[in-house]
């Protein structure tokens, strides 16, 4: 036990140190590299908190995708002129005091848990068997709180629309400005040929296993997005223009099927987003498969950014 607590303390010290360095670093580049490392350490923390589903999501999205996104932005921002002036010392002191106050408040809240800690875990487990799922987190996401999950997919699509809407009018319907490093027969091409088959298998596995073990649509979708981005960056596949009908269809297929099954529940089962008894598991897996596709495409396009070029005929 002591070894583990020493490990935990070491982990926390590392997380805090690297976290602070991403704030304090002078160079944006240094800060981003720190952030990616931070994301990976954080996913270890999530494993230590027995939340493997979250650990996977954090590693894939929090560290990986976010890191890639910000790194790409840093590369482009090197072109930016001028620098902003840092806040003056008194302002920084005041802000520091305020932030310390918030952190202290949170610490007090964490250090004073209720005497009998309330939990929904038994209730989740009691009812999980009905749905045929084995992973309680998937149960919460797709059975008990399916409404939140459904709406969150709409959030993802709106975010993508928001990103796209930043394009100049002249290139609307064009191709996202993802940087392509197309050098024939480079090592990157080799990687982009070798990795995607493996990655797709991993994504399918994650999506499939999510019903009973950690994993699921988010994690699978992220792997899918990463593979797609790799293939596009290596220049093996063209970045599709955002007006492609198949692209739009893929983006909404997950939420649409989710919504349709939810509405069918009003007729075939007892309520909206209720599954007919006995069919819960196959329906949820159908939803998860469709969502994996939609999430993969949405995350990939979010990372690719707004359209910047018109499609050449």
């Amino acid at each position, binding site marked *: 036990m002591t070894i583990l607590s020493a490990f935990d303390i070491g982990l926390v010290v590392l997380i805090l140190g690297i976290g602070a360095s991403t704030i304090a670093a002078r160079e944006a580049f240094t800060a981003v590299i720190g952030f990616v490392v931070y994301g990976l350490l954080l996913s270890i923390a999530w494993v230590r908190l027995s939340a493997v589903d979250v650990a996977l999501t954090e590693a894939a999205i929090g560290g990986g995708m976010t890191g890639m996104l910000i790194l790409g932005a840093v590369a482009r921002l090197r072109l930016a002129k001028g620098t902003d002036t840092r806040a003056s010392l008194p302002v920084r002191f005041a802000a520091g005091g305020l932030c310390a106050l918030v952190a202290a408040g949170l610490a007090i809240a964490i250090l004073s848990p209720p005497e009998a800690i309330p939990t929904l875990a038994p209730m989740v487990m009691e009812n999980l068997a009905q749905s045929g799922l084995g992973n309680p987190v998937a149960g919460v996401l797709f059975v008990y709180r399916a409404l939140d999950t459904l709406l969150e997919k709409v959030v993802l699509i709106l975010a993508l629309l928001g990103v796209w809407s930043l394009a100049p009018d002249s290139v609307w319907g064009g191709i996202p400005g993802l940087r392509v490093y197309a050098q024939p027969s480079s*090592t990157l091409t080799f990687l982009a040929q070798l*990795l995607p088959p493996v990655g797709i298998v991993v994504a399918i596995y994650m999506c499939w296993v999510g019903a009973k073990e950690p994993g699921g649509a988010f994690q699978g979708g992220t792997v899918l997005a990463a593979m797609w981005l790799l293939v596009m960056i290596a220049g093996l596949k063209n970045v599709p223009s955002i007006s492609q009908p198949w692209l739009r269809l893929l983006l909404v297929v997950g939420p649409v099927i989710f919504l349709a099954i939810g509405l069918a529940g009003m007729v075939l089962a007892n309520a909206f987003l209720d599954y007919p008894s006995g069919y819960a598991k196959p329906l949820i897996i159908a939803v998860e498969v469709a969502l994996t596709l939609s999430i993969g495409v949405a995350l990939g396009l979010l990372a690719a950014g707004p359209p910047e070029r018109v499609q050449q005929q």
Partner: protein
Amino acid sequence: MNLAFDIFTVSVVSAGAFFFLAGTVGLLRFPDSLTRLHALTKVDNLGLGLVVVGLLPQANGLFGALKLVSIWLLVQLSGAIVTQLIAGAVRQRGSDG
């Protein structure tokens, strides 16, 4: 039997950890990008490799062991290629960036 496995795991993982440490020191102390990359490959290949080998007896059946080995293989692949890319970029810039 279990004890033997545990001793094996501890010693091999420790050896792996040593390479991690050595590689990290190299990353921090070596003078230019290429030598730093050299240090990093030690972490990938030997460090992670030894950790994986050490964990094999503890793995959850054959499937678990396969997963562990495939993690190592994937890291090998991506590590080798990313190292290539960085080295290429360094050479293009013509300095030790």
